[in-house]
């Protein structure tokens, strides 16, 4: 499963849970041929790999495709929901419920049987220039948040920004490790369905702390840009950081790694300073004199 598929998997789990599924069989990677009665009694979630329902086989729905691919040559007795990833239904395939497509790549052979079909594109084609508008909106939100937090709690942001700029290696290491671990723990908590609300909250909390870390970086940057009040410095710096992240995201791979590193530095800075409540000082080897 790719990290970018995590939100789709969480949405799939939420849909499965709200649909009354007591359990979910999640495919994360590899090739899987679903046999009749071989899966669990609950929902099937394709979160990676290639899943095949062979001809002559009937499985119970619902089936959610969040990443990877699902090939249906047999029969699905229930709904099939394509959130992302690929879905193909062969001539011999049949979906006895509704085939709902939100953002997947769906291909249905002419001879396939589909009881009902719904297309709800979540991300419709956007007009040129809308990306720029979205980036500007993000920057404005970051600037406003930075202004409010920077004016009200300048000491907290000073600590976060200080840790991030004075100890970038430690901040990146802690931010990266906690970020990756939190993501993985959150996904596996979500898989239990019972802990789904906790996972969603943890996901939100992680995002908020990462955003707070960006404001900390913004404070540190704005403070270096000129003699501004803490609120203005944070606002200007946060806008700059968000725009830099947007520009980095345009560069394939290297840009994404650089952007993740920047976010990790801020996230780690927020964590090692206990959300800015204390100044971070790494352990030192005491001198013998």
């Amino acid at each position, binding site marked *: 499963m790719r990290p970018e598929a995590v939100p789709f998997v969480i949405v799939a789990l939420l849909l499965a849970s709200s649909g009354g599924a007591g359990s979910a069989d999640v*495919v994360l990677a590899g090739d899987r041929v679903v046999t009749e009665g071989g899966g669990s009694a609950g929902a099937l979630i394709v979160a990676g*790999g290639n899943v095949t329902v062979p001809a002559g086989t009937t499985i119970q729905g619902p089936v959610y495709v969040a990443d990877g691919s699902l090939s249906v040559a047999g029969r699905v007795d229930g709904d099939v929901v394509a959130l992302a990833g690929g879905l193909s239904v062969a001539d011999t395939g049949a979906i006895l419920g509704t085939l709902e497509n939100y953002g997947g790549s769906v291909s249905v052979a002419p001879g396939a049987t589909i009881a009902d079909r719904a297309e709800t594109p979540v991300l419709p084609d956007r007009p040129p220039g809308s990306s720029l508008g979205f980036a500007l909106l993000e920057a404005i939100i970051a600037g406003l948040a930075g202004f409010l937090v920077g004016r009200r709690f300048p000491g907290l942001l000073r600590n976060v920004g200080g840790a991030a700029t004075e100890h970038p290696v430690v901040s990146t*290491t802690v931010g990266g490790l906690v970020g990756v671990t939190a993501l993985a723990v959150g996904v596996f908590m979500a898989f239990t369905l019972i802990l789904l609300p906790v996972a969603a909250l943890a996901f939100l909390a992680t995002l908020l702390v990462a955003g707070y870390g960006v404001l900390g970086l913004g404070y540190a940057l704005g403070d270096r840009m000129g003699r501004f009040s803490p609120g203005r410095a944070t606002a200007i710096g946060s806008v700059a950081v968000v725009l830099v992240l947007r520009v980095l995201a345009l560069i394939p791979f290297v840009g994404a790694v650089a952007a993740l590193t920047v976010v990790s530095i801020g996230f780690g800075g927020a964590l090692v300073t206990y959300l800015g409540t204390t100044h971070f000082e790494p352990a030192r080897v*005491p*001198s*013998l004199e």
Partner: protein
Amino acid sequence: MTVTDIRDHARAGRWDAVLGVLGFIAVLAAGYYYNLTFVQLGLIDLGTRVVGLPGTTVSLAMAGFALAAFAAAVVAGVSLDRRGLGGDLTAKVRVLALVVGTQWLLTILAPFVATPNTYVAWLLACALAIGVGMPVTFALAVDLVPVPDRGLVAAVATAVAFFMAAVYPMNWRVEEFAGVLVPAMAPGVLLFAVLASGRTGVLERLSRYGGEHSIGRFCRPEPVRTGSWGFWVLVVLMFGAFFVDSLGFLRIVETPVFVLTSWQSPDVGVRVFIGGTHVVAALAAGVLYRSFGRRALFLWVFGMFAFTHLLYTFDLRTATDASGTPPLLLPAAYATAVSFYTTLNFAIWPDLSTPRTACTHAALGVGIAGWLATFLSTSLALYLSAAEVTVLSHLTLVNALTLLLFVGLGVALYLKRVVHHGRAAA
């Protein structure tokens, strides 16, 4: 006054001190690579395939090997310190030269071992050599490695050893290992022989830095005594890390579906991925070691192991089709946990030592935590296997142990704070 580190040596042009650090990394990484490949896996192949012993007998022999290595380490470590040789670089290099030479000869002879008796005799000789070599190798840190750099040095040694072990050699057969190691060890044997001869003056020059490097980070201002709580609590915690690693690993490498995404994977890409994860995780552990206290690091180690085994048991519970390859997240989490505690293990014993206790602390620490834990976990794994315990139950047991260690350590640390604040208030 600041404490000298490797950058200070480089800035001042003391390149012999820098070379000493690099030499230590090379010795530690090579020794650990030898242990990971030839000892832990090559000898199992030697016993089962070449000598033709049943797997259970070989596992018992390996447990005995661990026990013999532990005994040899403690005897050697304590003896060296009692004779005042723990802080004597020349003496330690001479012992190590003897050990490396013996290991080289044993590696040459390994493919020719053909009977159960010679196999056991070979294992015993190897255990004695490794047992003596281990505390001496660790104790070199008090002469060669600046105290602030020990975490990073340990991290680099861990990264090199695990990356090499994951990527090379291709076949897990004793002949293959011997074919790689015999020529690779030859220059090392020669170098140690030259250094041990005492004719180069290198060791005398390196000994000059011993005073600056000798007192470990956790021995400042007061040295950690061998009988103190502070020392034994860390031995027990490290024992826990080795035990859960070994107990889980022994079963994972026997489970065919997990082998596809492990060190033994036939896919080079998978092995490079695991090796790369080891490198990144070791370097992260080095950064954390330098920046944080011991407690935070042990919490990370146990937390990572608990999470890793949770992933494995989760995969076993949810995998409905045996043909499904487990996600790479599983070995990545495992490699991270292992790199974390190995880095910690490499750095912590010298940092708990002075020249008077360096060999003893390394012998007790690594001996009890490493060898004894391996002996006990192998015995337990054999018992569980004989009792026909399923993979899921086995890994659930390991998972329960790691969770217990993680939560137990967290609660213990919290209670310690409560007692501290309580006393302050009183």
